[in-house]
């Protein structure tokens, strides 16, 4: 964890305005590969808006979003789906967004769409049933199976995703994002609604994603126990502005952070 390591994503002077409302105001931070960067802050601090800018759902009013891969991507200039396809940024959503009628396995195969689309020769090879496509499909299934093992859902593979219990849906959504083979994974409150045991499992999963898959993780989380135990770096937002940044232990003691959470208006720490 040397700070000299080049950042994976650099957010520079990000500002997002909706009409008169400034949701994110001149926020800059960076996230490194093989590290979990947590973004915390009270409700309405603009955390999800930052995610939506990074993943292309919103076009930032001002600011630069630089992602380093084999080349440099300027995310603010890319369309929503191109960010997933070329810059390889994957995300999950606050309110889980699986494909509920499709099975668990199908969800993971859809995540490998672009790879499989190429292998199927834009469907032509696939329609003809050529071996080149069949091999690619088998490989994709094997990849999905690995992930199902990691999240403990192999037995459920052929069940519609919408029928899974809540905690399993959360894990599946993370696995689906990982099946796109991302460089950067953005998780929007992955621990929300989980019980303590599931939450602990989630911690293990996130640590294994950081250490085994070696990608950068951006994490929005309200559950401070999760944030403090697994993140390498914490960014604190309040009313759209960055009020603190640093290693978890330092941030925890920061008076500005304490004020934002416990300050004059009684906004308590969620979870």
């Amino acid at each position, binding site marked *: 964890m040397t700070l000299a390591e080049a950042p994976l994503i650099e957010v520079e002077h990000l500002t997002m305005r909706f009409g008169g409302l400034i949701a994110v105001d001149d926020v800059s931070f960076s996230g490194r590969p093989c590290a979990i960067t947590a973004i915390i802050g009270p409700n309405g601090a603009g955390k999800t808006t930052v995610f939506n800018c990074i*993943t*292309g*759902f919103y076009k930032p009013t001002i600011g630069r979003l630089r992602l380093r891969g084999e080349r440099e991507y300027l995310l603010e200039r890319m369309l*929503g*789906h*191109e*960010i*997933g*396809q*070329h810059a*390889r940024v*994957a*995300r999950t*959503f606050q309110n889980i*967004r*699986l*494909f*509920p*009628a*499709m*099975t668990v*396995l*199908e969800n993971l*195969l*859809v*995540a*490998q*769409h*672009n790879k*499989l*689309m190429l292998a*199927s020769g*834009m*469907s032509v090879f*696939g*329609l003809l049933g050529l071996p080149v496509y069949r091999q690619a499909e088998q490989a994709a*299934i094997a990849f*999905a*199976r690995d992930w*199902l093992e990691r999240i403990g859902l*192999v*037995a459920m*593979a*052929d*069940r*519609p995703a919408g029928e899974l219990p809540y905690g399993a849906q959360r894990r599946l959504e993370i696995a*689906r*994002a990982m099946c*796109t083979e991302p460089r950067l994974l953005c998780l929007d409150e992955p621990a929300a609604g989980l019980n303590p045991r599931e939450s602990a499992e989630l911690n293990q999963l996130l640590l294994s994603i950081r250490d085994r898959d070696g990608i950068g993780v951006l994490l929005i989380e309200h559950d401070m126990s999760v944030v403090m135990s697994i993140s390498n770096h914490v960014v604190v937002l309040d009313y759209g502005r960055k009020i603190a940044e640093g290693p978890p232990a330092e941030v925890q003691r920061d008076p500005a952070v304490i004020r934002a959470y416990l300050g004059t208006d009684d906004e308590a720490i969620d979870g």
Partner: protein
Amino acid sequence: MVGARLPLMLKDAALTALVAAALGVFIVGFHTVDIGSRTGLSFDFWFADLGVALVVIFLGRLGLSLAAEGLRWPAIALGVVMLIAGISPLRLPSGFLHWFVALGGALLVVRAAWPWANQAIAAGAATPTGRLIDRIGNQWAGWFLLAVAVLLPLTPIGDQKTMDLGVLILTYVMLGWGLNIVVGLAGLLDLGYVAFYAVGAYSYALLSTQHGLGFWAVLPLAGMLAASFGILLGFPVLRLRGDYLAIVTLGFGEIIRLVILNWVDLTSGPAGIGSIPGPTLFGAVFAETAPEGKQTVAEMLGVPFSSNQRLIFLYYVILGLALVTNLFTQRMRRLPVGRAWEALREDETACKALGINPTNTKLTAFAIGAMFAGFAGSFFAAKQRFISPESFTFIESAIILAIVVLGGMGSQIGVVLAAVLLIGLPEWFRELGSYRMLAFGLAMVLIMVFRPRGLIAHREPSIRLHPIGAKGGG
């Protein structure tokens, strides 16, 4: 307990009847009739009809409340009485009312007995035999239907009337399967599907009558033309939200129809295009005598001519076309693009986050759906030998949509069932023909309210990690 609830139920039924009375008093009660001159309209009072209908509505509502309260037997008794009254020779003011009363009674009985039937089905399905039947049903129903369809012309029931109807139903099955790609799989509500049908039909009509091209040469062309139209129209609008897309496609459908209607130089407008040649078999024509330089199918096969041959041939052509549509769709569903269609239907935002290009994916569904409509259109023109803009109105799109919706969006067998029900039944019961569209409309509402996944709600996964029968499968 029940005695206390009865006045409430009666009041509820009375209120329902009152609302129905308010709905019907002018529109039904005062039937306007022409009396010749320009300004001349007079009334025919239909209050007796209205009265009977209101009594039925009152009793029906009461019966439904009873059934909902768990009083199934009284509800069933009420239903049976209505059913008998409907089919009895009792003289009601109109034939329609007989149907209305009888159907109302039948529906009431079904509703009251529904929980039992549901229980029985659930209990039956849980037994090993039940599971076996279920699996056989899922796996073999399609093959059984196919066998029936293939053998039908060879059986004695395959007379001219049945064959005509068979061709008609199969045309709608094919259109339903085509639209199912767009609506059922990709979740794009296309209200202008008939436009592509029209493009296919006019392509063949014009190319054959003006340039002398044959059916089999034009068929792929017509499909490609229709698909190009699909891409052309789809590209700018497929980014729109679902309901806007529906209206825009409706607009496109009407624009194409109006252009056909008014571009008289090309399409001869409302007069239509006639003497379109039918499809040939290896270059042989279906006719009593062949035109110069050609031979008839009867001569080629060395059998006596019969007018039925052409019909049976048409039947197999459309059966083949429909099967191609089905096989193609089934195959596409198991490919990445097919899974992406379904994923888009489920959640477009999540698709974008996974790096799937929504516009391109939708465009393929739209274009492929259009292509099959184009094929079907060519066939339609070759079968009818005459086409005019009247065959391509919004109602046609609505019928195809009703078939897809009723069958269960995404279900291939469901489309067949729905096509037989919606196209076949009204043809068999001619007297009901004028109520057909009314029934379509009501059926669409009822399906959405009570069974939004359609008659066949089962969705077979496009791929399984654990094949059926293997341990851990399910």
